[in-house]
């Protein structure tokens, strides 16, 4: 017999988890099925809402000034501006102190590990002291074994970007790291457990001592985002105590500890709200029963065994090209699970433009939703009456250029979760 729930969410990234939490909030029994780990681990952990308009204007100070202006079909236009605000509040509630930025509608400018700054709406508390829109002199600290972050270069770049403070960078040896290819989780673990680095000194003290020699009159010190995984608040507090200045993290590329921490917070919330989570196994197929426009059950492949899962409402949150919610071959682009319509040019050479940062059509690949977030077929009819799509699997927007990925995931996830829950049993 099928495993039964009211709402089944497929995909465990930011959009899927938000949808599951929003649906669970309405008192429905929700299950989230996630195959592989989500792209949260690739993401910097920042929650962007809208940093640039689709025409490239920006950086935008207040995204809510621009949301109304987005073209028809943009996911924000589909859900409406109020939903974006509600979703951000919902997110703030879920993550609590782990995130900052909720005190204002305005974007913050956050330093990136490339030395640029980017506009974002919510940022991890670990990054809060580092916002580049605050005029405070900054020491950036890099580690010689982490070639992704070159602190002196990033500091020079911040100044070139016009940041309103003096920035300086130093490169030091991370105490306790023995191999040049240690993973970021190793750095975090040393600090989390304050492992002794030489038999007596703990990693936190040792790191602070290595930095303090370089600290002049800067009022804050920024590190690449490796300051703990399980106990980041403690790590940061200890470093701040020892250094006597504020400490922050510069978000990094994959693999991203801030992304992992956000994932932890979100999955704890799922547990608290009673969402059942099935992970490590893919949904491979679906079945209808009589009505071809309604999904009856989906099939989960557990290492070869077909396990049917039935729910009243389904939410597709499988991600975009990176998360594999959108797939492609030489001949075309498709949504692999329900085969929802994904508009794309027939000629593969029209999927891209020649400037790497140009207006890339491939970045907009995804399913097209109606205002209920149901994926539409080629004739603009909903593919299924009980399927909604959220987050990266949606098309029609370039999250990378707009800096809108987090906000779209939150707002579409939130709306789909609420509406799916309301529709249960209807």
């Amino acid at each position, binding site marked *: 017999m099928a495993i039964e729930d009211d709402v089944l969410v497929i995909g465990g990234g930011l959009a899927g988890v938000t949808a599951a939490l929003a649906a669970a909030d309405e008192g429905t029994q929700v299950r989230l099925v996630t195959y592989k780990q989500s792209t949260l681990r690739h*993401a*910097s952990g920042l929650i962007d809402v809208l*940093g640039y308009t689709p025409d*490239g204007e*920006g*950086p935008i*100070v207040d995204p809510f000034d621009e949301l109304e202006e987005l073209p028809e079909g943009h996911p924000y236009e589909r859900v409406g501006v109020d939903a974006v605000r509600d979703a951000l509040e919902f997110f703030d509630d879920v993550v609590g102190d782990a995130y*900052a930025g909720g*005190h*204002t509608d*305005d*974007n*913050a*400018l956050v330093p*990136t*590990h*490339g*030395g*640029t*700054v*980017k506009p974002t709406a919510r940022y991890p508390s670990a990054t*809060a*002291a580092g*916002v580049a*829109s*605050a*005029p405070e002199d900054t020491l950036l600290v890099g580690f*010689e074994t982490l*070639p*992704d972050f*070159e602190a002196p*270069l990033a500091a*020079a*770049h911040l100044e*070139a*970007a*016009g*940041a*309103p403070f003096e920035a300086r960078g130093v490169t030091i*040896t991370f105490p306790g790291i023995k191999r*040049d*290819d240690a993973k970021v989780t190793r750095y975090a673990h040393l600090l989390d457990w304050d492992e002794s680095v030489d038999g007596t000194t703990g990693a936190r003290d040792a790191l602070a001592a290595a930095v303090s020699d370089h600290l002049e009159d800067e009022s804050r010190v920024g590190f690449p985002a490796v300051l703990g995984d399980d106990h980041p608040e403690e790590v940061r507090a200890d470093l701040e105590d020892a250094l006597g*200045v*504020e400490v922050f993290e510069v978000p990094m*590329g*994959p693999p991203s500890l801030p992304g992992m921490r956000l994932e932890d917070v979100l999955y704890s919330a799922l547990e608290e709200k009673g969402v059942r989570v099935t992970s490590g196994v893919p949904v491979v197929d679906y079945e209808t029963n009589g009505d071809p426009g309604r999904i009856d059950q989906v099939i989960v492949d557990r290492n070869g065994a077909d396990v049917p899962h039935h729910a009243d409402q389904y939410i597709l949150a499988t991600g*975009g*090209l*990176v998360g*594999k919610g959108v797939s492609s071959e*030489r001949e075309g682009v498709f949504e692999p699970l329900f085969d929802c319509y994904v508009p794309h040019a027939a000629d593969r*050479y029209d*999927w891209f433009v*020649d*400037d*790497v*940062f140009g207006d890339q059509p*491939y970045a907009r690949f995804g399913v097209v939703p109606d205002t209920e977030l149901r994926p539409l077929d080629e004739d603009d009819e909903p593919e299924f009456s009980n399927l909604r799509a959220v987050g990266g699997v949606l098309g029609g927007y370039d999250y*990378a*250029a707009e800096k809108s990925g987090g906000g779209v995931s939150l707002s579409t996830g939130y709306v789909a979760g609420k509406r799916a829950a309301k529709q249960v049993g209807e």
Partner: protein
Amino acid sequence: MTRDTEVLVLGGGSTGCGIARDLAMRGVDVTLVERGNLTGGTTGRMHGLLHSGGRYAVSDQASATECIEENKILRDIAGHCVEMTGGLFVQRPEDSDEYFQEKLEGCRECGIPAEVLSARESREVEPYLATDIKRSIKVPDGAIDPFRLCVANAIDAQNHGARIETHAKVIDLLRDGDDIYGVKVKHDSGPGKRTHNTAGSTEEITAEYVVNATGAWAGQIGAMADLDVEVRPSKGVMTIMNVRQVDTVVNRCRPKGDADIIVPHETTAILGTTDEEVEDPDDYPEEQWEVDHMIDTLKELVPILEEARTIRSFWGVRPLYEPPGTGTTDPTDITRDFFLLDHDDRDGVDGMASIVGGKFTTYRAMAEDITDHVCEKLGVDARCVTAEEPLPGSEDMSILNEGMDNFGLRSPVARRSKQRLGSRAQDVLDTNECNPVICQCEGVTRAEIRDAIDQSGSDLNAVRIRTRASMGNCQGGFCCHNMANELSHEYDEETVRAALDELFQERWKGERHALWGEQLSQAMLNYALHATTMNRDNDPANGSKAVDFGAFDGGRVKARTDGGE
């Protein structure tokens, strides 16, 4: 009148670098100018096959014989650039038995060791060959890295006193009546190593003799002095697979045709090619059908190519030439032989020769012939030693095979680094500094990157061709930024930023041709990393308009008002 240099070589491809090395080793003062990076023309855009000569064993036995001779020489003098993979000419059931026999006999006539393998034996050598192949001929084909080979020639020329100027574009030939006496070049960033954001300059370089070794561009150079060089550029596509589906060069055993060769090249396999005449070697269409044609035809030999990931495609332009009046219409039928055009004999213009046609495998022999010619013109009496003296990096290949230290690196990284650096490995890798891997796809460490930067300045594409960094499956998505970080020890932020942008765009150029399946996902991830995470597409440092930082959220109110706790 004194000239700046005795011989000026135009073109930093294999021919130009080979000539420069040969001249320098014979004691001639030589200057080489190249408009871009070394190998920037045809040399850097070939499939990396070290011919056994088997491909020409039926159609052009003179070339075939020359190939096997040079093949043996390169194994000796350029061991660190060569991988002796062996090659197979594979016959499918629909391919002619008669041709197979001709190929076999042709090889033997040309002194190319050739052995017939049954289908089963062939598949034991290459398990991914199609199950229905008929048989194959095994020949000593190999793989060669044209980048390292060319760079090694240039370095050796420099070691013998040559001046090598890259990013120095010839903008005019200096001609006085019937005498060509030099060129005018435009340096991208002044003479010497390239540094981004450094003002360019022009320079007149005079010489006793000018060698036009610009290959497919020879006609353009000739035109600057009103000389007609009838080079017929012909383009060919090459598609790079992410991994080596084969470890042996796999050729299709049939008379001629497109898409008939797979060359294992470093960590990848390269599919080739097509042959189509183009007007302008700098501007020709790069089309989807060409890429599809490679995969769809070569999967007849190696079926997993159908599903395999390609990471990019590129086109090379052959510098084909045939004497006026030959009238060949199909470029595949134009001879691969090379021609030395002495403009004095031909056009009555003294002081310059052009070299056209030819093929990579025999670059050294070509260089020797031309150098002989130039020496005769200059009255220099010196013997060619390029076939005997190993190139830098290949001086003593035995030390690599005798269990050289791993320099604290993981064994596959150490192995690949040593294969690339050859006998220079000790010098480069034996460092007390920490030495993290910068390019994980190709296993390139910081020490190797910095060594390349020392050689080539702020040009990361020059670092790339020396090290292979950013040439793996992420196509630089994860390492371009890290490579640029390594520049910051010698160059300022603005220079580093320009170098990074240039490399990243260059990587995208080839990757565009592989945008489906895994590589499209990779491209999206790369784009997200550079645009979303780093905001490099809207970097305020590049913008013309200053950002009003003060208008944005200044962070937690608490921290700002009481100055922390």
